[in-house]
């Protein structure tokens, strides 16, 4: 690292000038009769500190800051090279910690700060329906029906454009006679225009393409599908694809990485809303004409100068008038706006936010631990550098300059670690990505190390350098010059001070690590409880086959015939216990319907009840192992000609008819025109996620509530995986073209439903362990430093005949006393943090004794080990050697 040429010239000039000054002074003195030697000594001492004179003179040149900095960097690099062992240890520690931060940030960056490939995201807002029911714990966000969306589009005065998009649904994409499952969204014609996205290829739907229903068979495909299915060739535009029962012409390819509004899950195909009837299941087929069939989430672009709050109040006004005009489907509903970035998190926004905050905190803790480790290494090294620093001070180095020099060194360390951290972060992110479920990995956002991640890591590395460097720099620049130079060293003042600082660091480190460990343990236990929690239905002998006859052109009669035939045929196969049909997949359900209970004051909005609704065939409860606690199961005679009936779960029964007879009570769905009578009550099971707070659930008989998309539930005697292939063959015997793309066993579906949580917990435990590892290494470092400081004392004690075991006990005891203080502080910290997270724990309290005891035990034994080894080594040294050395 060299100074620029002009600057070097200037310095040489100054050197020459000062040299000539000295020369003239010496000659003058000789003329006055002094000897050469006298003259030189006196002239030099009169001149003063040469390097300081140069320094202060150079400072008048301006830009010296930069020169000094170059020098500092140069010098710093030399020092780091000289102490290679130290450098490697520090860089490794920091790179692990910064890498963890990089990996987590990369994922969060993709999810939260994901810059949609859209125009001016800040003006985009998500528009959702909400049920104003006050009896529910939190606001529910619902889609908007097509007719309501049309009215909102036409009547609002706040958006320059309002578009709608459906949640993604699966469809068979045909290739010859075989099909492949893809995800599709139906969107209004102006969807891409409102988002302001440009196609990678071809064009999007022109707004005018919302022609007559069914008359607009065009499709936009995702970049991923284009690559996978069409090899990325440009002639894909104009090609035809067969989706479900209709043929679509590809008009465009979405840009790479475009998932739509959602930041986590994106479809493979976008279809115009007027093709809804051709692709959706029967239940939603009339979504374009029925105001009670909510299908679209809205996304609007605010006009310039309109705030989100203004827009919301405008839309609420429209919602009120819609509710007045169409009370059936709209009563009790209003409109809310969400920021586009919140809507991007999808239905689990709050959980994702929290999990991310937790992860970020944990990796932050890990980084702090690493900083404290390296600070300690630096302190220990400062001891070795005392002489060097004292010499520099005596030569006139200014303390500030010295501190800057030392900080430059630590920032260089930070930067070096940052580079490795990027590599580690990249590896971590790839590892995380490889854990995505293969079934829909291509639809999930893929985290990438982009410029933002790069800048984040860079800044973090520099900041890290300052954090771990500042205390050691302040400390070592304080070196008492004379003492050090006179080698009256081993003076206790300086090193005692340093031991004190090291002690504070140690206590802090123990506290932080313990808190991080306890948090990780609490969440691990919580998830373990959750995954072993009783799901409320049997999972082990279960095989599931989602069938969608409606999508391949079956009408109602054919579908019903198919259901019956598959059921009887499969039940007759060997190894099959029982068979039934249901509309929902376990653990993939949503609270979907609003229920109005008969006899309750209807006007009060708070009387609508949100509930999961599942349409089932006979025997469902016995296949699933859900006990019927009162009343009866559905029977053959519960069909279209008989009285409408329903079975409810215990939550509904206890909430709305506490202590009363439930059988015979009646309710209707909001917007519906007939009441259903309750004929049975079943035990609760879990519907949305394992370990959930009890949800309401209503079961309807298939014979009274036909659906052309159903899941075949098969209870097997033995391993359900063995049964998958024969059953699949059997279904294909009945209809060879029936798409069967999503066949799973019950245990698979549970682990898939738990995937997000498991990921989060996996990361938690990895980072918790990393924290523990770094903390133990740090403890070890601090202890060996403390022992080294007192090697002399140990030598004397041993020479005076002290018992080895006693010396050992003293030292370990002293270390453990500090650890003890740290543990107490860590427990306090964990209790504080635990209170903040207690609502997220399942089956354990924030003060869970097992988690706390386990974490403390692991930490304390690690610490004891770290104390014992250096102390043990110290007592092994021959007392004479250690005395002589000092």
């Amino acid at each position: 690292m060299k100074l620029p040429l002009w600057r070097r010239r200037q310095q040489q000039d100054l050197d020459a000038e000062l040299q000539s000054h000295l020369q003239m002074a010496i000659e003058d003195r000789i003329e006055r009769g002094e000897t050469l030697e006298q003259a030189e000594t006196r002239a030099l001492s009169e001149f003063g500190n040469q390097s300081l004179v140069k320094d202060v003179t150079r400072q008048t040149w301006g830009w010296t800051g930069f020169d000094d900095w170059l020098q500092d960097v140069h010098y710093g690099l030399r020092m780091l090279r000289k102490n290679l062992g130290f450098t490697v240890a520090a860089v490794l520690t920091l790179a692990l910690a910064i890498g963890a931060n990089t990996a987590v940030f990369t994922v969060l960056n993709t999810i939260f700060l994901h810059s949609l490939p859209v125009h001016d995201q800040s003006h985009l807002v998500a528009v959702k329906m909400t049920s104003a029911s006050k009896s529910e714990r939190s606001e529910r966000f619902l889609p908007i029906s097509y007719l309501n969306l049309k009215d909102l589009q036409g009547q609002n005065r706040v958006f320059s454009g309002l578009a709608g998009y459906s949640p993604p649904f699966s469809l068979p994409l045909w290739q010859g006679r075989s099909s492949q499952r893809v995800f599709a969204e139906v969107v209004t014609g102006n969807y891409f225009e409102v988002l302001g996205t440009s196609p990678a290829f071809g064009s999007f739907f022109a707004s005018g393409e919302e022609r007559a229903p069914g008359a607009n068979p065009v499709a936009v495909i995702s970049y991923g599908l284009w690559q996978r299915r069409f090899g990325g060739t440009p002639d894909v535009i104009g090609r035809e694809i067969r989706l479900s029962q209709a043929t679509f012409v590809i008009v465009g390819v979405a840009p790479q990485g475009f998932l739509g509004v959602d930041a986590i899950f994106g479809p493979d195909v976008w279809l115009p809303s007027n093709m809804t009837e051709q692709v959706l299941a029967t239940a939603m087929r009339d979504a374009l004409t029925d105001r009670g069939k909510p299908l679209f989430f809205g996304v609007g672009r605010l006009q310039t100068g309109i705030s989100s709050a203004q827009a919301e109040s405008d839309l609420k006004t429209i919602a009120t008038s819609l509710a007045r005009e169409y009370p059936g489907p709209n009563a009790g509903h209003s409109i809310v706006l969400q920021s586009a970035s919140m809507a991007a998190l999808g239905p689990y926004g709050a959980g994702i936010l929290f999990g991310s905050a937790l992860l970020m905190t944990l990796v932050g803790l890990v980084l702090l631990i690493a900083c404290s480790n390296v600070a300690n290494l630096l302190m220990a090294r400062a001891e070795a550098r005392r002489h060097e620093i004292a010499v520099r001070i005596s030569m006139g180095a200014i303390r500030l300059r010295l501190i800057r020099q030392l900080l430059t060194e630590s920032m260089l360390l930070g930067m070096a670690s940052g580079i490795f951290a990027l590599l580690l972060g990249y590896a971590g992110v790839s590892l995380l990505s490889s854990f995505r479920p293969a079934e829909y990995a291509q639809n999930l956002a893929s985290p990438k190390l982009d410029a933002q991640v790069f800048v984040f890591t860079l800044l973090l590395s520099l900041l890290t350098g300052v954090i771990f460097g500042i205390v050691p720099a302040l400390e070592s620049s304080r070196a008492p010059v004379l003492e050090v130079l006179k080698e009256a060293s081993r003076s206790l003042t300086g090193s005692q001070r340093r031991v004190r600082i090291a002690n504070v660091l140690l206590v802090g480190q123990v506290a932080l690590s313990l808190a991080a460990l306890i948090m990780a343990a609490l969440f691990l236990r919580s998830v373990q409880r959750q995954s072993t929690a009783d799901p409320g239905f049997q999972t082990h002998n279960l095989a599931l086959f989602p069938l969608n006859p409606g999508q391949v052109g079956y009408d109602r009669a054919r579908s019903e015939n198919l259901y019956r035939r598959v059921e009887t045929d499969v039940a007759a196969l060997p190894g099959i216990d029982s068979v039934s049909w249901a509309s929902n997949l376990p653990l993939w359900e949503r609270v979907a319907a609003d229920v109005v209970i008969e006899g309750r004051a209807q006007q009060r909005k708070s009387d609508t009840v949100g509930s999961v609704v599942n349409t089932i065939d006979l025997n469902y409860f016995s296949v699933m192992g859900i006990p019927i606690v009162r009343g009866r199961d559905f029977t053959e005679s519960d069909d279209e000609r008989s009285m409408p009936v329903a079975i409810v779960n215990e939550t509904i029964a206890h909430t709305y008819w506490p202590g009363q007879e439930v059988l015979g009570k009646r309710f209707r769905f909001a917007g519906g025109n007939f009441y259903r009578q309750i004929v049975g009550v079943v035990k609760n099971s879990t519907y949305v996620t394992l370990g959930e707070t009890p949800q309401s659930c209503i079961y309807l008989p298939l014979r009274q509530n036909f659906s052309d998309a159903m899941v075949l539930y098969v209870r097997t005697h033995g391993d359900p995986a063995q049964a998958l292939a024969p059953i699949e063959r059997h279904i294909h015997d009945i209809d060879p073209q029936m798409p069967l793309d999503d066949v799973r066993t019950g245990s698979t579906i549970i682990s898939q439903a738990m995937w997000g949580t498991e990921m989060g917990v996996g990361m938690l435990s990895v980072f918790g362990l990393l924290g523990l590892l770094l903390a133990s290494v740090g403890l070890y470092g601090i202890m060996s430093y403390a022992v080294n400081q007192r090697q002399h004392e140990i030598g004397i004690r041993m020479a005076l005949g002290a018992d080895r075991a006693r010396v050992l006990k003293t030292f370990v005891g002293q270390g453990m006393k500090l650890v003890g203080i740290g543990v107490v502080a860590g427990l306090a910290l964990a209790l504080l943090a635990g209170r903040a997270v207690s609502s997220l724990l399942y089956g354990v309290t924030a003060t869970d004794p097992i988690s706390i005891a386990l974490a403390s035990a692991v930490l304390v034994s690690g610490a004891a080990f770290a104390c014992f080894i250096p102390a043990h080594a110290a007592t092994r040294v021959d007392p004479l050697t250690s005395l002589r050395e000092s």
Partner: protein
Amino acid sequence: MPPAYQNRIELLQGTLDLLVLQTLQWGPQHGYGIAQCIRGGSGDTLQVETGSLYPALHRLERQGWIVSEWKLTDKKQRAKFYRLTRAGKTQLLRERSRWEQLSDAIAAILNAVRTEGEV
């Protein structure tokens, strides 16, 4: 030690500039010569530290009040000579009048204190 050193530079700054400019009024001179002149002219009262002198010279040069040139001394030695510029002469006059004002003002205050003390 170092901080005290720096303090003195700060204290002397304005005055030292004046002394340097005044010295250069008589003709070009190198740093050592300037120091000797000030020392001799003040009857050894004022000792100019090199740590103050050279920063002052370089600062004055940057401000354009003096220019430098390497030349040979009477004793055939290479040295860097400083010479007053036109702007430097103006600056000298300005600094002189300011110094006179300042010393008058200080004298007035000191005298006033003495009078009060006598009453």
